[in-house]
């Protein structure tokens, strides 16, 4: 990590992520966005749930961090933010945490349009417990609890959060670092509920079980299937098969 971002890390921490983990990249991109906006990190509160992504801010960020229960990060963040609106509050957690066990809190916070920035590090499986299927796993994908392939459709989290009225909704992959940093900066500045579905590959579980190759090859694979919304416009349903469409889905009128 570059020296200028190291100032935002809690002294003495060692980053815990596996080789090629998207969460490690996301950690750096979040700090880059904060640095570029010149936000005083002491004014921020980072709230996370349980899972690999919940370890992005806790204990690593040298700021107020609240590492909570599985699925409940948004509910904790709501209480802190409603009592002290001065706290610039960012929720960082995984897809299993925010969309499966915590899905109800996600849609209700989006509906209330509370001024929270929620980053969902979406690795499309339960990484910490061994790569089991979750609500964002694509259909057909193999996991330890779906050895014959996932029989169910995944959530499109952006559609879900957009449908209930969040101000800012976007999806970017950690393999699109510049666009993602700009998106995080926007999310931090917009008043109201901001949500980014961050595609954050998990080479150790998802990549290995689906034979995507080395961590580098796994990241390359995700880089190849993520296409910008503008580029997806002219494509047929068949051409979009297996692709992840990224971009802004609601930008708060900006």
């Amino acid at each position: 990590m570059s020296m200028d971002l190291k100032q935002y890390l809690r002294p003495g921490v060692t980053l815990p992520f596996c080789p090629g983990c998207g969460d490690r990249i996301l950690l750096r991109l979040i700090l880059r966005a904060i640095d570029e906006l010149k936000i005083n990190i002491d004014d921020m509160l980072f709230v996370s749930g349980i899972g690999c992504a919940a370890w992005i801010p806790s204990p690593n960020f040298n700021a107020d961090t609240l590492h909570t229960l599985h699925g409940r990060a948004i509910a904790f963040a709501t209480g802190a933010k409603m009592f002290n609106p001065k706290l610039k509050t960012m929720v960082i957690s995984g897809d299993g945490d925010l969309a499966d066990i915590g899905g109800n809190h996600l849609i209700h916070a989006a509906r209330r349009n509370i001024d929270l920035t929620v980053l969902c590090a979406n690795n499309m499986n339960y990484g910490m417990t061994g790569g089991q299927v979750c609500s964002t796993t694509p259909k057909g994908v193999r996991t330890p609890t779906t050895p014959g392939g996932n029989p169910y459709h995944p959530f499109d989290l952006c559609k879900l959060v957009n449908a209930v009225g969040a101000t800012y909704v976007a999806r970017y992959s950690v393999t699109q670092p510049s666009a993602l940093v700009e998106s995080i900066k926007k999310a931090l500045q917009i008043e109201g509920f901001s949500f980014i579905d961050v595609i954050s590959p998990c080479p150790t579980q998802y990549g290995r079980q689906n034979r995507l190759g080395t961590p580098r090859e796994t990241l390359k694979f995700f880089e190849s299937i993520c296409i910008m919304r503008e580029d997806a416009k002219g494509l047929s349903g068949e051409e979009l098969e297996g692709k992840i469409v990224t971009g802004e889905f609601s930008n708060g009128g900006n």
Partner: protein
Amino acid sequence: MAGASERKLESALAAISYYFSGDEAIAEGAIAAGCRYYAGYPITPATEIFETITSRFREIGAVSMQMEDEIASICSCIGASWAGAKAMIATSGPGFSLMQEAIGYAVITETPVVIVDVQRTGPSTGQATRVGSGDIMQARWGTHGAMPIIALSAWSVQELYDQTIDAFNFAEKYRVPVFLMAEEATAHLRERMNIPEEIKLFDREKEAGVAPFGTEESDGVPPMPAFGEGEKLLVTGSTHDAYGIRKTVDPLAQEKLVTRLHSKIMNNREKIIEYEEHYLKDADIAVICYGFTARSSLFAIERLREEGKKVGMLRLKTLWPFADRAISNIGSRVKRILVPEMNMGQIVGEIVKYTSCEVVPYNQMNGEVIHPHTIIEQLRALL
């Protein structure tokens, strides 16, 4: 928006008599204690607390949130508490069950929060509008890896008001979730109560730069800063050291933490526990009771005293930590103890633990309060 230390005592009620329901008294007690964040979910028979406090909060500029369920409600209270609020939530059995995981989180993170459980009959939905007292052991042991908490029990509208204030003071002093184990019968009862001229309040201690999750003493309570004060707080539900750093495999860190969580309550239990004795001096038979049942018991005892029968009563105002010494003491003075409860026998097991004299339970879980004549009958059988 009310800050943590800000007081709006000018908006507290005038020190005169009121004709309140128990639920209204709890809401007013919370406001007087400095509660400025409430989160809830509608549930009978606790809803009136939510409605009353929400309308009063509008006058004083505090925050009331209706969340999507009781899990979100308690979690938001814990979040608000770390943002500096005195926070409360009221519920009944089904909501109390949903909160259990987060209660454990409040215990391990040492978060002050007041939880009112207006008990109704269970299990499950049971009879939503009828009285029960079936959550006593759940308050103590409901969350996994349970550690001592504080639970209070009131027998009148006045006492619900007073104990709500006590609950906030204990929560702030010991950094622990505190339960007010109310019952439908007192929550929906309307009776006269007085707002006192003066209320003693305890606010959490803050000390910049001091470890927020550990003390030199094995039973100490560390200071608790709030988010936004530049302390770079590290709050986690995982086992942690004095500064909040996760220690997920270190047996010494785990032992040190749980020892202190246990001892900070148990070593101070004589300062926490309150009970009330009635006619016990020369009694041969003691009724040990709590909550609404104590009203019926006192009526029964006074009737039997008129006949010259040597009966008395101990009323538990604190359920947890348990009044072990008081029970041992009474057990050595009387011949028999009657324990009437609106459940199938909960506190009676604790009483058996701490006395060798004969202990007789009386259990009624039919959604009705235990009638004084029932207690008279039970006592006559023991005389």
